[in-house]
Structure formats: C-alpha cells, structure tokens
C-alpha cells in the first residue's frame, strides 16, 4: 500500500482506518463485530469502485505524477533480464533524465529507452525531473540507431513533463534534436514500441514516442504541454491547470479516440503504484503481444504502416 495519499482518496482511507480500528477493538475486547465490519467492508469496496472507477482527468494526472508510480527503471527490473545501461550522446554529455541500454525481453535482445523522473527530491534533482536536455534526445536516437544496426526491437517508456527549457538546452539545439529524432524514427528499420507510462509532455515526450504500436497506461496522460503551461499560455494563469485538464483531452481514452495511441493498458485499482508487480505483469504481456504483431511484418510494410499512422492524424473540414 502506498504511503503517499492523494486528496480524493481520503474518504476511502478514513473508512479503511475505521475498519482496522473495529477489528482491533473486536479482538482486544473479545466482542463480535463481524457484521459491522462486513458492512463497512462492503461500503469500502463500493467507495473504491466509485472513486477509482470515475477518476477525473485531474485525478488521473495526480496518479500519473505520483512519486511512487513505477518508472522505466522499475519496469526494467521487473520485465527485462540482464540490462546493461549505455551512456552518453557522443557529442556533449550524458543526460541522467534519459536512461537507455540493452537487455533481454523474454529471451530476445532489445533496446530499452525511457525518461526517469526520480522518486524523491534528491533523485528528482539528479534526474532533472525527467526533463531531457538535447543530450538525452541524442543519446536516445544513438541507441535507436544502434538497435537498428543489430536488429534489436526498441521499447521506449515515456514519462516526462517535457523537454527542458534553459539556456544550455537552447544553445545545444533542443528543437533540432527533437526534429532529428522524429524524422529518423520514422525510418528506423526495427520495431519501435513506445509506451506512455506516466506523463507524456510535449515534444520531449514525442521525441521517443514515434513508433509502430503505441501503448498507454490507463492513468497516464499525453498532451501538447502540461496543463500548467497550457493554462499559462491560453488563460495567462498557470494556477488554472485543474480547470483546463479535462478540456485538453489528455487521458488514455481521449487519445485512443483521436487515434494517437493503439491500446490502453489497465492499471491496478487506484493506479500502478498500488501494485507495481501486477502492473508490470500486465504491461509485459501487452509489450510481447505488440512486438509479435509488429515483428511479423516485412520492414517495408512496417514502415509504411508507421508512417500512415501519423500521416492520418489531423482534423480538417474541407480538402
């Protein structure tokens, strides 16, 4: 069970605490409270379904940003064998916001790439909150081209608020590295399976999310910018993020409707962090299924389908 609770979970937690109290009381005093406890447990189950079954977009964002939400490093440990991390972009440095390397997935050598936010303040700072610099995008692309050379499928795991904005990032070509990745990923002759596991923010997310079959966890979000930036730009007020979150249509279901993603992966009740091993198991199955379906296509066909997927996105009135 998670130690960090979200606001909307409070009634549930209070109820569960009450049940525990009754149980303890019943045991200590030897009074039979089984009926009362059962009633409360039924109530708790209903409440759970009500709360987690009707999450608002903002509540999903809170889950997607939960500090204990499993990230790429957790999935590497749970789903891949013998991971060896590779470092550096061969131009300037190594970006700790992006992790990448080679491992086996159900026996097959694959390349794994993902954003890392870190789970506490110290890690957050070390990982720059998962916001890549140009070096991170270049490292990711380098590892993808390496994967192509050796015929390894690529799994990418997206979890970033966006590409970092700062002086150094601009000086070293933040925009150009994203554009280069988007262009190159479109012709990469090995299967590319991106999964949006947490936050998919802007160009930083897209830079590792062009692929053949795009998966998204149930409570993950994916958008043109964070709701804070969106509110700041359109309403000139970043504190209105909660208000715009729904209108931005950034949930997995919204994106499936737009044809931006191909499959939604169910999370354990209350979010991936409530049961990371279960989450990994479900994700692992979907990854293998996705890989199988892409792998059987001849490369030309695979690339044509990849292009057509993105080519078809747009909403026009005429023409």
């Amino acid at each position, binding site marked *: 069970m998670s130690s960090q609770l979200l606001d909307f979970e409070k009634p549930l937690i209070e109820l569960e605490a009450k049940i525990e109290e009754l149980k303890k009381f019943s045991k200590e005093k030897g009074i039979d409270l089984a009926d009362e406890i059962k009633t409360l447990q039924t109530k708790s189950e209903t409440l759970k379904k009500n709360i987690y079954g009707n999450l608002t977009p903002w509540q999903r964002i809170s889950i997607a940003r939960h500090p204990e939400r499993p990230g790429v490093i957790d999935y590497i440990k749970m789903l891949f064998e013998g991971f060896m991390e590779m470092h550096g972009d061969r131009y300037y440095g190594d970006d700790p916001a992006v992790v990448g390397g080679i491992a086996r997935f159900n026996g097959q050598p694959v390349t794994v790439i993902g954003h890392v936010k870190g789970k506490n303040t110290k890690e957050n700072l070390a990982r720059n909150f998962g916001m890549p610099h140009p070096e991170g995008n270049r490292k990711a692309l380098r590892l993808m081209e390496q994967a192509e050379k050796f015929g390894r499928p690529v799994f990418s795991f997206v979890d970033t608020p966006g*590409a970092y*904005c*700062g*002086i150094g*990032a*601009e*000086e*070293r*070509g*933040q*925009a*150009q590295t*994203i*554009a*280069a990745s*988007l*262009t*190159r990923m*479109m*012709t990469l002759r090995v299967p590319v399976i991106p999964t949006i596991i947490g936050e998919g923010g*802007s*160009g930083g997310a*897209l830079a590792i999310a*062009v692929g053949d079959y795009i998966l998204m966890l149930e409570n993950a979000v*994916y*958008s*043109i*910018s964070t709701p804070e*930036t*969106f509110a*700041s*730009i*359109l309403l000139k007020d970043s504190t209105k993020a909660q208000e715009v979150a729904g*209108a*931005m*249509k*950034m949930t997995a279901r*919204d*994106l499936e409707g*737009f044809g*931006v993603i191909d499959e939604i992966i169910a999370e354990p009740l209350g979010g991936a962090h409530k049961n990371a091993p279960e989450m990994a198991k479900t994700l692992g199955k979907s990854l293998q299924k996705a890989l199988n379906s892409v792998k059987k296509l001849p490369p030309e066909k695979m690339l044509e389908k*990849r*292009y057509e997927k*993105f*080519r078809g*996105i*747009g*909403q*026009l*009135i*005429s*023409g």
Partner: protein
Amino acid sequence: MLKDLFRKPKYVTVHADTVRKDIPEGLWQKCPTCNEILYSKELEKTMKTCGKCGYHFRMGARERINATIDEGSFSELDADLVSANPLGFADYPVKIAKSQEATKLKDAIVTGEAVIDGKPVVIGVMDAGFVMGSMGSVVGEKVTRAVEKAIAKGVPLIIFSASGGARMQEGIISLMQMAKTCGALAKLNEARLLYISVVTDPTTGGVTASFATMGDIIVAEPGALIGFTGQRVIEQTIRQKLPEGFQTSEFLLDHGFIDMVVPRMQMKNTLAALLDLHTNGGTDNV
C-alpha cells in the same frame, strides 16, 4: 538692426507625440530598432527592411511569395483547407475567424507550386499573423501535402517558417503534426530531393522542433527570433535574464544550427543559386 543679430532666436518646442500625430496612418512607419521614420513606399522597395539599420519587419505570406518567386508563377495548393475544432473549445472558431478576417488567409500557411529564377519548386510560406503562425491540423497537413507534391513532381521544396509553435487549441493533434511533417520529410530524403528551410521571425516551439530545422540547407533572415522555448517561459523557469542576442539567427549561426543568415533583399538570388547548384551537374554514381 545690429542688435537683432545678437538676439536669441525663438525656438518652437515640438513634442514627440505631436510629431507622431502628424504622420498619416499607413503612409509612414517607424523602425523599432533605430527609430528611423520610413516612407511606406520606400519600405515596399526594400521589401520591408529598414534602409538605415537593416531591421526586417515581419512579412505576410502573400507578400513573401510575391517577393520570392517569378512573377505570375504561383499556383496555390489546398487553398480551402480549414481546421475542425478537435478539443471543442468555444472560442477557437472565433479566433480562427478573426485571423481569417485580419490576414485574408484560411490558416497559417500558404503552399503552392511556383518557379524561382526559372526553376520549378514547391513552396510553403507561413504567416505569423494567423493565430501566431501556430501549427495545427491545417499547417501540418499542408506541409505534408507540399512535401508529397515535391516528391511527385521531383522538384525541390522551400518552406519559410514563422510560427509560435504547435497550436495549443488543437491539443495533442497539433503535437502529432510534428511527427507527421517530419515523417513526410524522411520520404523526401529517400527521394533525394532538396529541402531548403528558411527561418524567419519568429520561429519557435513545435515548428522549430520539426520541419524548420530539418532542411538540407537552413537559411535565416537577420535578427529573427528562433528557438524551442519562448523567452518569457525560459526566464520564468531559470529565474534569470537572458543574454543579449539569445535565440537570434546570429546566435544560431554561432552555435552551428543554421547554414547562413541572408538579408531579405538577397533571399531570392540566394535561393536561385542554391537551386541551380542542385539541379545542374549532379552525378548519379554515388
């Protein structure tokens, strides 16, 4: 009279705002960098650049096309394409309508087939006056179709960028246009066709992070703002003032991200020379 010679002459005080009032609307413009008052007819001759300091005023898409191509050679593509409202924002159609009224354009880019110095090209020109030149479904689709047209015709592609980035009002759909346009350019590369990207003021966000920086040759106009993140956002994030000249064409040239900075008056000749180098005398045994 002799004493008149030593009399202090009376000066008339002219206030700055009275001077401004005397300038008839539209006839004169003031240069924002050197404050030179420029006669609009002169500005037309200098292609909207200041004759004194070289400042480049922003230019609309239609004017730009006329200034760049051989007269009468333009045939527009996909002129009627307009955007839907994928997120269903109530004021988005209103915003589009206002921009259409102000610019007489359907969206932030005009594309077409044209001839430059006798050489056929496909050209796309963005207009920063249309919802900040932002890229939504229409810009993404028209750029993609322009690339496809260039491939079908086997001719070079030239795109003038001017954009605030991906269009917020179309949300994730706008973000996907970055991948879509880059995917089309990947096909242009496979067809080994020339793409010249001309970056003009301002080009930021999702357009810089997609087709604008993917040219075989990247040319910028002097003094243009070019970057990924807008300056206000960077300043708010890092809480410090940005250095002088940050994110200008010259800054990008210094940092190795563009090939050349070309003044507007020399743009057509430069493009013509580049086209010439790519149409005559190539060899196939590579």
